[in-house]
């Protein structure tokens, strides 16, 4: 029982990451009709926003500590961050400690800019091209983006820890009346879950309750009609692309303490996020969220050793198996509309 609760909890947490990434992907597809294979790269760039900010915060000057020596026996050069000089050592250390949450502020403008630049510079020329062309050009872009990141940051993962306040885990079991330590969950993952919920809620509220959102939703349903009404839908769509990029980027920023970011993390998530979007139904926002959580929970269950013992290898293939079954039984995904992406 406790094992099952634990995996549901874990699945929801995993699912919140999937849902967040798939949300931006399906937003772009729903509004612009573009299949964006570079979406994973946006996620990755978001994560590197966090890396970059913590690099900036830890920009240092060298102080020689003659009491210690380095590996070649020379006096040790100690790096002292400039932040220490500005804020004093205690505050400076706190600022560095909170680099990841601070990166949210840094990442939003950067990602909006990246998104808008991408849409204006490349994507807008592909609205009328076949989906295959869109897939291919964004795939090319994804390769280019990740190679650029690799050029500057190397191939190894870069640790970007969460603030010290969030280390350790929360004991749910104790609350629910189970033995202590049976149902524990890391604080930062709970933060991630809450963060994802807030972002998802915000995107839905934005689309539901603002005029801008209404126009965009109308445009998702019928682009030409909205165009005929004399509304400049293109500009709004550009902004939507920026927004989707920002959502992906924030998902990336907050993910960095969970897995140390590396240049190919976008590609690692790409296939998965497409599976999520397709299972949810192309262009359906609630579908993407639902599918994200569903796949997260199923993946968690499949990784239980009791399940693996029963069906060897199930943890390797569960996501794909679910995708195949759903696509064959519900051709348009869980909540997809008819006729989308079938040409």
């Amino acid at each position: 029982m406790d094992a099952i609760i634990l995996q549901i909890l874990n699945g929801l947490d995993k699912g919140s990451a999937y849902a967040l990434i798939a949300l931006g992907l399906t937003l772009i597809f729903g509004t612009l009709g573009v299949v964006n294979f570079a979406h994973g790269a946006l996620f990755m760039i978001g994560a590197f926003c966090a890396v970059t900010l913590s690099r900036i915060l830890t920009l240092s000057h060298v102080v020689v500590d003659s009491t210690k020596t380095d590996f070649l026996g020379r006096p040790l050069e100690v790096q002292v961050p400039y932040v220490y000089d500005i804020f004093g050592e205690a505050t400076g250390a706190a600022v560095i400690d909170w680099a990841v949450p601070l990166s949210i502020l840094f990442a939003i403008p950067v990602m909006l800019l990246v998104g808008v630049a991408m849409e204006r510079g490349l994507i807008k020329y592909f609205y009328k091209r076949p989906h295959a062309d869109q897939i291919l050009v964004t795939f090319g872009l994804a390769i280019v983006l990740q190679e650029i990141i690799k050029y500057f940051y190397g191939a190894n993962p870069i640790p970007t820890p969460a603030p010290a306040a969030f280390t350790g885990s929360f004991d749910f079991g104790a609350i629910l009346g189970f033995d202590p330590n049976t149902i524990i969950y890391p604080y930062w993952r709970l933060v991630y879950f809450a963060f994802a919920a807030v972002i998802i809620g915000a995107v839905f509220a934005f689309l539901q309750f603002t005029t801008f959102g209404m126009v965009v939703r109308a445009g998702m349903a019928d682009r030409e009609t909205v165009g005929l009404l004399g509304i400049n839908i293109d500009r709004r769509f550009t902004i939507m692309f920026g927004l989707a990029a920002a959502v992906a980027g924030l998902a990336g920023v907050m993910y960095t303490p969970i897995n140390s970011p590396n240049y190919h993390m976008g590609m690692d998530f790409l296939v998965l996020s497409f599976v999520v979007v397709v299972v949810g139904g192309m262009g359906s926002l609630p579908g993407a969220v639902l599918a994200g959580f569903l796949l997260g929970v199923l993946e968690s269950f499949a990784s239980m050793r009791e399940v693996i013992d029963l069906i060897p290898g199930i943890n390797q293939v569960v996501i794909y198996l679910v995708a195949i079954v759903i696509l064959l039984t519900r051709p348009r995904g869980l909540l997809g509309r008819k006729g989308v992406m079938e040409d």
Partner: protein
Amino acid sequence: MFGLDKKDTMLLLLVAALTALAPFLLNPFPEGSALAQFNAGYPDLMQRFVIFGIFAIGFNILFGLTGYLSFGHAAFLGVGSYAAVWMFKLLSMNVLPAIVLAVVMSGLFALLIGYVSLRRSGIYFSILTLAFAQMMFALAYSVLTPITGGETGLQLALDDPRILDGGVETGGNIPVPGLFGMEMRDSVQLELGAWVFTFNFGYYFAAVVMLIAFYIAIRIFRSPFGMMLRAIKANQQRLNYTGLNTRPYTLAAFVISGMYAGLAGALMASMDPLAGAERMFWTASGEVVLMTILGGVGTLIGPILGAGAIKYMENIISKINSDILHNWFAFLPDGLEDLLVTLVYPFIGKGWHLTLGIIFMLVVIFLPGGLVEGGQRVARLFKSKKTDSSAAKPQTEPGE
């Protein structure tokens, strides 16, 4: 000739001539010269050119004609390789049974996966094929290790049964794949002045297979079946209401292209008897898409060109290290040399993925018809300059 019209016969003969003369054409620079780095006329790479050419030709029969974008075609290549290696292990080092079994096995897998995946179209089809291929990769890498060799790949061993070759003494070394006594690795060399050209038996064997595959592809392109496939891409609804059942057509195309992939896999295993699971990973499937697009989707020769271009980059450009760059620019003043090296270095050697990504984007943006379209444009430019006539006629004959 060969039941082809004049133009196609010319194309076939051209490809035949190019493959036959490849050892010369790919080694244009004399040994020891600075540009020898760009020579590609060594057996392994030439074999790869034709083998991936076969893979791309087959993929193009599906994607180029019907427009169904499979993102899991590498799985069939993998199946072909595994089947071939198992034949080497169990039956004989002769490549023919290996190739036959590989084609049959990949055809069976394609039939099964195609039957399920083709129930959907568009991106749903792509995701289904991707899902199947990823499942095959994941299982081959892990729980199927006894069959596939897992991480280290399926390899030959000294104590393999090799039933048909039973009497042959191995002498402490594993025999290599061959064809009735000729080994795939046998080579002859020809030295002409400063040039050295290598003629490899394996390459010519693979080249002959590719020519046959290419010939069959031309026949398919020009057949009523090929026309139906193009009609599926053009307007599937119309085809249905014209009394044609599109499902068996697409399935047949899928199986045929899967068999091409299996054939390519078998040849890979014949040239180099090891089958690794990575060749089934989704990026490997993406690679054949890149090849086809780069060369020209739906054209006959495009996929071969695309396969050549990508394999060339992977094997030649990726080997240029900073040392070699410094050598090239050594004639420049030091500061300028360093600057140039700094500017160029991110794009070559270990940065070859970046160059690949950029070229690929440029092609998709500006040359949707790939290298073939590029060639046509250049040819048209020359034509109109020469004759100074009005604009060249738009190309109306498809499937060039």
